[in-house]
């Protein structure tokens, strides 16, 4: 019994880690699609896309791990969550199809019309996928109606003002990460414009974070009340303080100093803290507000079997993923990468 409890917590943390890695990695590459409308020249768009072309499908693999891991370690939570957010999940999957194929098709299209349509698919797919992910997050936070082992709510439960705020915040946040990534990978005149975008999306992201926090509190959504209870406040208290410090540092590096790498790294830290804050609100629920991770856990034998592999394989995966990023490090050359 003791072992199974430990494993369940370990799996919850491991899955949270996978989702976090997904959010920041696909975050910046979805962000590039979100920024596309602000860059109309073909050359600009080419180099923006090339900055993530070698890594985007690796980034999306973390989404498969998130879904597959939930299925394996918490099958009941997976079985409740998917029908509960059926429309936004399906919409997200279809959106990811549009933007994923745009990476390849854009270079194969030779008429003006078809090039334009794949650009539009890339933009529409990226924005919709980000929006849907935010909505799914919101639906999860606001709580899901459960009866027995199944979803018992309605068709449109996922669509509320709160989930829409979450959706828009995620779009802003991904756009911000994307701009920070490009700020790191590009130089010259386009980098200047990217940095302006980063500033705008940074402000939008902060507005989003504050709005979601206030809405969570006002609506008494989920388990927000616990944030202020003693002794949890010892754990939760530092999060907003750190968040404010990082926001300050970000404004400095974006507005005053104009640094290359620092905004991206601080952006990752900003996401990590928001993620930690959300995690603390939800803990220990697999499906708020009723199903805990222990209720939803797969039998210990399932969790153990996978855990052995995950402990060995995840570090290896991180190592070769890191290597792939290392190979394609540095600023992009605008004179290469054209067709």
């Amino acid at each position, binding site marked *: 019994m003791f072992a199974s409890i430990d494993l369940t917590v370990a799996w919850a943390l491991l899955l949270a880690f996978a989702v976090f890695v997904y959010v920041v990695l696909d975050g910046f590459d979805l962000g590039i699609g979100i920024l596309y409308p602000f860059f109309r020249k073909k050359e600009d768009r080419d180099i923006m896309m090339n900055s993530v072309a070698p890594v985007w499908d690796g980034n999306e*693999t973390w989404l498969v791990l998130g879904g597959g891991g939930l299925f394996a370690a918490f099958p009941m939570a997976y079985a409740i969550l998917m029908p509960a957010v059926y429309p936004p999940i399906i919409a997200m999957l*279809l959106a*990811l199809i549009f933007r994923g194929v745009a990476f390849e098709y854009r270079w194969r299209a030779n008429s003006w019309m078809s090039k334009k349509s794949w650009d539009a698919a890339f933009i529409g797919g990226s924005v919709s996928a980000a929006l849907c992910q935010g909505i799914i997050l919101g639906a999860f936070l606001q709580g899901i109606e459960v009866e027995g082992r*199944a979803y018992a709510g309605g068709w449109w439960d996922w669509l509320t003002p709160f989930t829409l705020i979450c959706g828009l915040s995620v779009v802003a946040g991904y756009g911000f990460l994307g701009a920070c990534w490009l700020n790191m990978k590009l130089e010259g005149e386009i980098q200047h414009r990217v940095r302006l975008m980063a500033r705008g999306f940074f402000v939008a992201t902060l507005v989003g974070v504050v709005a979601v926090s206030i809405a969570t509190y006002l609506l008494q959504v989920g388990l927000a009340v616990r944030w202020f209870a003693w002794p949890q406040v010892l754990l939760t208290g530092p999060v907003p303080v750190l968040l404010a410090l990082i926001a300050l540092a970000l404004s400095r590096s974006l507005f005053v100093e104009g640094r290359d790498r620092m905004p991206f790294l601080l952006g990752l830290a900003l996401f990590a803290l928001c993620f930690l804050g959300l995690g603390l609100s939800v803990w220990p629920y697999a499906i708020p507000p009723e199903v805990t991770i222990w209720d939803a856990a797969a039998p210990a034998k399932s969790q153990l079997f996978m855990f052995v592999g995950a402990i060995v394989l995840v570090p290896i995966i991180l190592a070769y993923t890191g290597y792939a990023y290392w190979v394609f490090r540095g600023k992009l050359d605008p004179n290469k990468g054209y067709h």
Partner: protein
Amino acid sequence: MDTFLGFDAVMLARMQFGFTVAFHFIFPAISIGLASFLAVLNGLYLWTKNEAYLRLFKYWLKIFAISFAMGVVSGIVMSYQFGTNWSVFSDIAGPVIGPLMAYEVLTAFFLEAGFLGIMIFGRDKVGPGLHMFACLMVAVGTAISATWILSVNSWMQTPQGFSIAENGQFVPEDWWAIIFNPSFPYRLAHTLTAAYLTTAFIVGGVGAWHLLRGRRENPGVRTMFSMAMWMAALVAPLQIFLGDMHGINTLEHQPAKVMAMEGHFESHEAGAPLILFGIPDQDAGEMRYSIEIPKLSSLILKHDLNAPLAGLDTIPDDEEPPVAVVFWSFRVMVGLGFAMLGIGLWSLWARFRGRLYDNRWLHRTAVAMGPSGLVAVIAGWITTEVGRQPYVVYGALRTAEAHSPLAASAVGVSLIAFVVIYFVIFGAGVAYILKLMRHAPALGERGVRVEPGPIRTTGITPQQQLREDGHDMAKEGA
């Protein structure tokens, strides 16, 4: 009853899963074979320094990149389809199959995706040795992926090594028994071989098309046609042998499926006939207008002309799979398999006569047979999946009890969205692939696109570019 356009939610969910998985399956079937083909080509190029191999590598790499992208995005859909449309199945069977799928992600998907970027863009960045390693990792990754997912699928066909908990969940008891379930080795061998054959016929079809266009002096064209025909000649007979073994294994574990494949409504005491064609009438329980070869079915399945074979009359009606679908899809698969064998033998004969690059009828047939592997793979998939009905986990969980608590309209609308979008998106992808295939592999074939690289001093850039373009010829000359 809650219906949408006359279908209930279960039927719609089945149609959606069947549609998305069949569409998805096309791309891995191509990727598994092409990844190995590319690794072989790259290896041959490094070994022999023969430019034709590099030319072919770059040529097929472009096609691989598109096909792989389509496989990735249609595959992400699959990892969520279980939960969206089959939530009860996910909850109950998740403890057993979930970990196997998690292992697929951890051991295969990351490996493929992690090294794909280097394989496509990284030759000049990491050097030939590491680039070759990346090609191998992608090829190995596709095969590992197939291994896990076929283990999952085989377990759903021949489940063992689990118990049923109080809450209804299947609890794993013996992982070895689960992974190496009885139908797994046969299904794995049969499916992997199918992927290699599929690719061989696509490559052969493209080669033949260019030969017909008078490009027999192009060493790339000759090499690809020759390699593909060797594969057809060697692997098609192997595949028929593996298929037979797989069938015998199915007879042992899922007899009702084989009865549907064979169209045996009636039991035969002494030697069952092989029904070549006929119109199955499941309601009446008989095969109409059948053309039969006496006793041949017993010979194939039991290796004995007079062995008795039970028919569907021994199976309760609510345990029977839909016969017509299984009967026909099986015939499509087997027919194509023998046609592939025919091409393989024909090419051997032409090769022996020294006419491999001149026999226009062989080339025409090879072009026509280009997509045959894809059709056979889908037909085989339908045979085995529909043949498992009415169960989703054979003998343990019925399909009708496994679906999500969703309104029929929700499943119906999303099904329509999938159908429309898949045809548009993947239709465009196929068009781009065909466009790439229309050009013969040329001297100095370009890569997927010149990769983004770190900035070099402005003055040297033109020279760098020059070196890039003349790269292959320089190597060839050296």
